[in-house]
């Protein structure tokens, strides 16, 4: 019933700028899982429909909605209900050097 190849969408890198306004990290580098079909992959691999009242990011496997972002004049609405979770790469935390802990 659908012919995605004829439709106008961008890849998930189109989310980088809009999400940078909200998050301190680049969320397009995060790994996510689609609630609907279980496909895993980077946010950058989503199909983003932007000629709309908001950004609608769909799963490349099943076309269901994974993420929606609406930017109003004073607020943004972010809907992640189509995402099981996001694995967000972060800098490694400091490794204890033993000077602050250990047997007294």
């Amino acid at each position, binding site marked *: 019933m*659908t*012919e995605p190849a004829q*439709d*106008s969408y961008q890849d998930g890198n189109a989310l980088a700028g809009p999400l940078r306004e909200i998050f301190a990290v680049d969320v397009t580098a995060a790994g996510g899982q689609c609630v609907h079909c279980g496909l895993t992959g980077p946010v950058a691999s989503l199909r983003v429909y932007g*000629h709309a009242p908001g*950004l609608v990011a769909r799963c490349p496997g099943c076309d269901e909605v994974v993420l929606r972002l609406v*930017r109003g*004049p004073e607020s943004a609405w972010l*809907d992640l209900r189509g995402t099981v979770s996001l694995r967000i790469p972060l800098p490694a935390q400091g490794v204890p050097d033993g000077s602050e802990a250990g047997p007294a």
Partner: protein
Amino acid sequence: MGFISRGFHGRPRDEGVKLPPGQYLVHDFPVLSAGPTPRVPLDRWEFAIDTEDGRTHRWSWRELMALPSETPTVDLHCVTKWSKLGTAWKGVSLDTLFADVESSAEYALVYSYGGYTTNLPVEDLLDGKAWIVYEFDGEELAAAHGGPARLLVPHLYLWKSAKWVQGIRLLNEDWPGFWETAGYHNYGDPWREQRYQGD
């Protein structure tokens, strides 16, 4: 804030035309879409009204075509700020489709092929205010604009005029739709500039 869509950039107002606040005039017909365009063969197309007590009224394409049609000419106002005036449509009034529907529900959830939904009060669908349209400008309605048939509720922002309409679910409680659950106004009156929640 330019990332949402091109439509959010300000445009000069046309002189001498009365538009809802914040709107600008266009002469083309912009295509907005939140997903892949559904392609529904007419022999499998069906429209339904589902009542609050579980009854379903169905129309095939042939049955829809056999109903009396109207040719409304209306102005369109998109929440992304463009307005298009004097658009000519052909379709069936919702008054005709609701003629044999027994319901006391106050709320409607419109649903589409492809999964889109939008909500509005039932009274906004009746008394000559809404149609299921299948022709635009004398031509069959293109899939990009919601063909083979879409809802037309021109007194509300255009996101309420669901493309690729499949049915209307009548409900005793309001059930916000696709954009209404993502920050957009629950009712969407362009003349009161009800774009976002809280407007």
